């Protein structure tokens, strides 16, 4: 990201689409090689390999054991193993792999988890929502640690669907830009480990999770509210619950004409129009159930390094409410940031992180 490069490329893959398409994809051979250090790639689907690799890498950086009774695992995904439904590809995996509770059981066995994983499947806010739920469950006293993993694939299923919505961009997406035409799909996995245990956190480096809320537009199942109603409510409730000043906003910024416009309205209504804001989707596309997690991770890293990251793909503001889109990577003291997201079904989420 610091090099300002995008992972969104033009692909010609007849298994995924009849015409060439732009997307950000994970190199399967790299994935398999990495996964093979943990288990046999032939026994796990691509989605499972992604999720497991992400969890393994996160666990390497902590002393928290996933097997404890006070540890919970939350999976965030929109479609999981949906590609096993594709009868044009001879998949070695049974169709029952598509059930997300089955994925949860698989992860429980793989990591020897004490509790059955919680699965959050709530469109594009799943990632942010999973982190919010994880922090709520810790606050309730039921758990001390929560491992939150988001994962989703670029599949023909999803590509064809967004195509039918005419919402894919021919080229890397341009969040908040005047010339934006739509989103770029991406795939990946990300993991965030939440803990109440202050001893296990390196005090200097720890990031706190603040208030977070979800909400609904109650307006339309696919188009966002023209007044940004739901997102405004979620942001407003977050701001009401904190004294912190927001230093940076990590927007959803899918680069569709309607989403970015709606976000600019919601942010302005909430009084955040002057706060530096970016979308990271120009780097890795819209990763659906993964988005909220990896964008939160990126926000945390940016906060640790006091670096505001450029909105790749953005040139000139193209929304009616002139929010402060970050157009150049630069140093800045960041003590707090707000992660926001919106999704199909009129859902929205807002979550505060702070040092």
């Amino acid at each position, binding site marked *: 990201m610091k090099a300002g490069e995008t992972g969104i490329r033009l692909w010609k893959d007849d298994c995924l689409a009849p015409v060439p398409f732009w997307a950000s994809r994970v190199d399967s051979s790299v994935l398999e090689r990495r996964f093979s250090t943990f288990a046999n790639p032939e026994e796990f689907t691509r989605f499972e390999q992604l999720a497991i690799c992400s969890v393994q890498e996160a666990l390497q950086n902590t002393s928290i054991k996933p097997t404890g009774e006070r540890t919970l695992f939350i999976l965030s995904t929109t479609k999981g193993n949906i590609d096993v439904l594709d009868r044009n590809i001879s998949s070695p995996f049974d169709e029952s792999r598509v059930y997300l509770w089955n994925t949860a059981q698989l992860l429980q066995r793989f990591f020897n988890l004490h509790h059955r994983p919680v699965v959050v499947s709530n469109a594009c806010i799943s990632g942010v929502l999973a982190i919010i739920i994880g922090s709520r469950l810790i606050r309730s006293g039921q758990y001390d640690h929560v491992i939150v993993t988001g994962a989703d694939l670029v599949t023909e299923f999803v590509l064809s669907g*967004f195509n039918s919505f005419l919402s894919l961009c021919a080229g890397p997406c341009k969040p908040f830009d005047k010339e934006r035409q739509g989103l770029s799909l991406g795939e990946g996995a990300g993991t965030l480990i939440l803990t109440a245990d202050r001893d296990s956190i390196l005090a200097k480096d720890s990031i706190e999770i603040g208030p977070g809320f979800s909400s609904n537009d109650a307006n339309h199942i696919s188009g966002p509210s023209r007044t940004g109603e739901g997102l405004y409510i979620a942001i407003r409730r977050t701001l009401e619950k904190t004294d912190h000043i927001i230093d940076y906003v990590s927007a959803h910024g899918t680069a569709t004409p309607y989403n970015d416009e709606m976000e600019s309205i919601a942010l302005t209504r909430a009084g955040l129009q002057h706060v530096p804001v970016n979308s990271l989707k120009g780097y890795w596309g819209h990763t659906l159930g993964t988005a909220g997690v990896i964008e939160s991770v990126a926000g945390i890293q940016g906060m640790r390094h006091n670096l505001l990251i450029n909105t790749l793909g953005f040139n000139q503001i193209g929304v009616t409410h002139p929010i402060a889109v970050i157009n150049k990577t630069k140093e800045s003291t960041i003590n707090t940031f707000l992660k926001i997201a919106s999704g199909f079904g009129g859902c929205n989420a807002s979550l505060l992180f702070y040092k």
Partner: protein
Amino acid sequence: MMDNKYSIRDYCIIRNQKVVQGGKVLFEGNEMLPAFFFAGLYKHLGVNYPKFHKMDNLCKLGFLAAEILLGNKKMNHRYSPDGSGIVLFNAASSLDTDRNHQLSIHDRSAYFPSPSVFVYTLANIVIGEICIRHKFFGESTFFIEEKFDALRLFSYVKQLFDEDLVKCCIAGWIELNGNQYDGVLYLVEKTTPDIDGIAIFEPGKLSEIYSQRS
């Protein structure tokens, strides 16, 4: 953990071609296929909501269960719109519609993915449809579990109430997979059970209601 008590104000069960609300049989249909049974229930309820016919079967199930619970209660007059929440669980997610979408893209020579099908390939759309109908702006989440888990539902919804994140909540199990369907919705509120509710909101009661013989 705070020891607050909340109440199950009402509940609705839709399964085996029968609809039960708060202990009474509301409707019985003959049609085995969900689409026809739901159409019959829609007509019986006298609902006037043309968008119903665009919904997939999962959303029809959730919509009808919520309609039965909320139709006459004017929920948004009792509580602020952003104090009303929805928490749903199921096992199959949106698999029923996922299969339809997959069919539409199976054959390259007849490749016509449909936006009105694709939009329903997410389980939380049923939450969206209920929110639109009843003007719920508050907290909502869709979870996936293999089976109905009263304890998980109870713990999460209770916490929403404890933290004052919701004043009322529609919670339950909305499952549909092919011709199999199972809809159980509870209306949970922050009121005194003795006065207003059918029962105290607690896992045992949730299980008991869920397991009622139909």
